[in-house]
């Protein structure tokens, strides 16, 4: 659908070089990278706000590398929304429609429908400066969607929001994507990426170093950036079931026949859990502790990691534990040995999909 080939651009301190990736129709693609690696520059070249130094951008086979901004059919939601401060919310959303010379009642109907979709109906007559971050983000989204872009680019759409509106916004983004709108979302937050992405592209130093599914990316990192989240070796898909009788926020997570205790604020539903391998303890005897998750399994792999030794234990699923060489020696760990792995419910992080 969108195909970026060997794109290069130098802009002051920001350099993107030789970036290639393609995004399928209806896909939710997340570009993940630390700040300052050129993610925004990449988005701006795709929208045409910046010209490219070399390379090409194709949209549905049409070469749009040198197309004018206003003719690209690629929507962009800015990190700071860039709402027009002198226009009302209604006029902001209607702005793009007016360029396409719809008649007045048609524009009104469209604006109203979009306002319902992003839940800003009560704000339509307000000025953007009076909106909260979450409200402004919704308006910016509606404004971009109004012109029915073939592809929607989102620059850190959740970064200016508080925690509560963040999960609402994630749900909204997913809902929009389900309407077959192709999305490219830029973020530095790996949880956000895991939560939304069908595929993730990892950006580092102006290059895309890996493109894959969230699971592959975090289990088999090809870059330093991802490797820093080394604990994310343990990455499981499943369903969260709330424990109604629980006095705290504990819940059960079910994956491949295994049931984990989880502490989470999230509502029940499907999603991923991640458990950092440093949080997983290996012992030869079951012992009582505060860890709610204790499983028996067999060691299937032992490997030297960047820090310490990584032990893979099969407990129904394969789980990685990061321990020291000293522990390996003292416990006499080896292939095929039966061990117990334990980790606290609070070490299990649930990321709702």
């Amino acid at each position, binding site marked *: 659908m969108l195909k970026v080939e060997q794109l290069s651009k130098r802009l002051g301190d920001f350099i993107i070089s030789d970036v290639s990736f393609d995004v399928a129709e209806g896909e939710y693609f997340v570009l993940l990278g630390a700040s300052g690696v050129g993610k925004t520059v990449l988005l701006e070249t795709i929208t045409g*706000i910046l010209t490219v130094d070399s390379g090409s951008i194709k949209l549905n086979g049409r070469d749009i590398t040198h197309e004018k901004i206003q*003719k*690209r059919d690629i929507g962009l939601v*800015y990190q700071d929304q*860039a709402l027009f401060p002198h226009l009302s919310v209604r006029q902001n959303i209607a702005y*793009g429609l007016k*360029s396409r010379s719809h008649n007045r009642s048609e524009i009104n109907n469209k604006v109203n429908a979009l306002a319902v979709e992003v839940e800003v109906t009560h704000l339509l007559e307000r000025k953007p400066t009076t909106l909260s971050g979450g409200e402004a983000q919704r308006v910016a989204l509606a*404004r971009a969607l109004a*012109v029915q872009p073939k592809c929607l680019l989102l620059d850190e759409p959740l970064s200016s929001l508080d925690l509560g509106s963040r999960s609402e916004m994630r749900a909204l983004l997913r809902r929009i994507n389900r309407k077959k709108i192709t999305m490219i979302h830029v973020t530095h937050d790996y949880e956000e990426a895991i939560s939304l992405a069908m595929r993730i592209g990892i950006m580092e130093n102006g290059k895309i170093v890996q493109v894959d599914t969230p699971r592959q990316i975090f289990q088999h990192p090809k870059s330093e950036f991802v490797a820093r989240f080394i604990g994310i070796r343990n990455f499981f898909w499943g369903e969260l079931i709330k424990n109604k009788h629980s006095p705290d926020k504990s819940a059960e997570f079910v994956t491949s026949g295994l049931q984990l205790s989880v502490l989470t604020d999230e509502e029940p539903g499907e999603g991923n859990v991640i458990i950092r391998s440093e949080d997983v303890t290996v012992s030869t005897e079951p012992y009582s502790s505060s860890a709610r998750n204790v499983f028996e399994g067999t060691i299937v792999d032992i490997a030297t990691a960047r820090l310490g030794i990584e032990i893979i234990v099969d407990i129904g699923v394969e789980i990685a534990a990061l321990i020291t060489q000293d522990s390996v020696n003292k416990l006499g760990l080896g292939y095929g040995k039966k061990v117990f792995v334990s980790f606290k419910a609070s070490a299990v992080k649930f990321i709702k999909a």
Partner: protein
Amino acid sequence: MQIQKRIEPLHLIFAALGGVVLLFFVAPLLNMIFKCSAGQLIETAQDSEVQRSIWLTLFTSMAATLVFSVVAIPFAYILARKNFPFKQLVNGIIDIPIVIPHSAAGIALLGIIAPDTIIGRIGETFGIKFVGGYGGIMVAMAFVSLPFLINSARDGFAAVPERLEKAALNLGAPPMRVFFTISTPLAWRAILSGLILMWARGMSEFGAVIIIAYHPMITPILIYERFGAFGLKYARPVSVLFIGICLLFFVIMRVIATRKNSA
């Protein structure tokens, strides 16, 4: 925490200096006003020559501002947005009318709009009389006052975040629409204040206009003529009347401008 309200002696001295400056501006004006009797003022206001010259001044300065704003405002936009070779030189050229003597500006202008020049002849075929005509008055006023509009509008456009224009383009709006619906409304306060400044400056112009068009007589020239022909006593009421009208219009425009912006 309470902000300390201790008075710094140095600042008292500065404030006193400020008082001297204000007095310097206000005292001559007040002196002039008090030396005019109400009778003189009324008599002057009824003088048809004075009336005609005031209307002429208001009309030509306003027309010059509006006509030249059509070219100046888009130019200011380019100056605010684009970088090009010799941009500093261009900015310098724009300020030339501010720094040169206005009588010299009048002489320079006369050289290219006199009846025997190309521009003079073209003007004549369209019925525009420069030397000794409205066209000449407007050109002279615009020459010396246009920099105020360009500079103010340029600063106004520069303060509009470029991102907003890009966002509008991204929504499919052609550049022309972006200019009229995003850039100009957001820079409007600065553009309007530039228009008012240009108009006020044009209205008070004397040096350049007198070279090009002694007649029809704008008020600053009328004041000068009355002073030369009849003396201070006769020049004074015209001056007071004209200053009063200028200030009145200036205040009205300012009020309209601020009201429109706060709406």
